[in-house]
């Protein structure tokens, strides 16, 4: 697909205005454990939007997230296939990461559909020399996971629907855990700063662009 489909320039420049989300907050429950698989989140969110509190911005953000999750999920699938001689720990971690990212893809796809949006297709990707050995793979993995954290954290404050925000929070925590485990495996600081950096959409897209094959 074309990279340009992924770019939502309007969103990259959305100002965090003097709004509270209370206007959008649905007083329904988080605590009730609307937890967070697409199949579960979907109905809640759909119900929310049926009440007229919709935002096409949320769907754009979800599609943005979906693209990143596709990228990560494909990355780990390919790593399992292509990297020679993964050590036992790295193999186990990679399998876990692959399963988690695939679950994120599924949940986001389902949620977007339930909201009446159109899930973006998986981008065509090329990880270059990323799989030439375990070190290269882990290095690239760290980049993706750290970028994923910053991407979700950057986009989330613009999410309008409480349930979508809760789902994003639930996913980004996992990205943070992944990032830490990969970093730890590489002998890097699992948490390099006290506050995780946020990136706006354009910064994220710039970061992942080298791995996305331009459409034709």
């Amino acid at each position: 697909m074309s990279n340009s489909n992924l770019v939502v320039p309007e969103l990259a420049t959305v100002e965090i205005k003097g709004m509270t989300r209370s206007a959008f907050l649905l007083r329904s429950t988080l605590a009730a454990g609307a937890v967070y698989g697409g199949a579960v989140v979907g109905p809640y969110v759909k119900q929310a939007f049926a009440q007229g509190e919709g935002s096409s911005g949320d769907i754009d953000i979800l599609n943005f997230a979906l693209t990143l999750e596709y990228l990560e999920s494909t990355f780990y699938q390919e790593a399992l296939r292509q990297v020679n001689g993964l050590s036992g720990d790295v193999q186990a971690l990679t399998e876990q990461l692959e399963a988690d990212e695939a679950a994120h893809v599924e949940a986001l796809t389902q949620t977007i559909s339930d909201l009446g949006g159109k899930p973006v297709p998986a981008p065509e990707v090329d990880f270059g020399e990323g799989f030439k050995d375990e070190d290269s793979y882990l290095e690239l993995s760290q980049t993706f996971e750290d970028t994923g954290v910053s991407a979700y954290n950057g986009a989330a404050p613009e999410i309008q629907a409480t349930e979508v925000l809760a789902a994003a929070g639930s996913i980004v925590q996992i990205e943070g855990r992944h990032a830490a485990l990969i970093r730890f495996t590489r002998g890097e600081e699992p948490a390099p700063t006290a506050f995780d950096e946020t990136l706006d959409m354009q910064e994220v897209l710039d970061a992942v662009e080298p791995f996305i094959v331009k459409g034709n």
Partner: protein
Amino acid sequence: MEDTQVSTPEPRQVIVPKKGSALRKLAEDDSSRKKFLKMVGGAGAATSFALLLAACGEDEETTTSGGDTTEPSTDDPQAASKDLDILNYALTLEFLEAKFYQDVLNSDLKPPQAIAEAVTTFGEHEAEHVDALTATIEMMGGTPVEDPMGNFESVLTDLDTVLATAARVENVGAAAYLNEAADIQSPEVLAAALSIHTVEARHAAALNDVAGLDFTGGDQFEGSIPDGPFAKPADRDTVMAEIKPFLPSGGGGN
């Protein structure tokens, strides 16, 4: 509105906050400031930072108008009050975490160097969270809660217990932030909370790994990815039950 007043927007005045405050550090240290600007996120960041400085300099020269300009992005008092409640809850948890790491370092336990370094770094992170939350609460006109002065003697018995406790406490913290995040009203406060939330998650994953725990463990608070692909929140009662043993009174709320 008096028509003698010209309504051209004045450039915001940066007011130097009190000496030694976290905000002072942010004002002087470019890299900290950049981090903080990133933390409060996006296009509103520069404005938020100016507001923050203005708010914290309130007992010094203030030429900007006061009142609601010091509140992040909401003039809804109920929303602000809800956010303050969440921030103070988070502050309580951060105080406990910071105290825990400090107590570990001050204890007779001599962790191997790698672990001592991690404890030091994580402890510094928690202290920075305390500073940032305190500053944000003050900026919003709230009163930060006191340090509950957690008592961790009961777990400072041996390294394994310390690590298991640290691993669990961080999992509890991450789940607590997740529970609150979606209720936060102000986008800036939300951005800050999320930015802390994922750091707690990083701590949790690393510590559970160090503690020899697998991806998933016995319950919600055990394991480096204890809930699988979707992290689960923990409500305040659940969190309170976890931290109660470490509160000096053995009870008490936030």
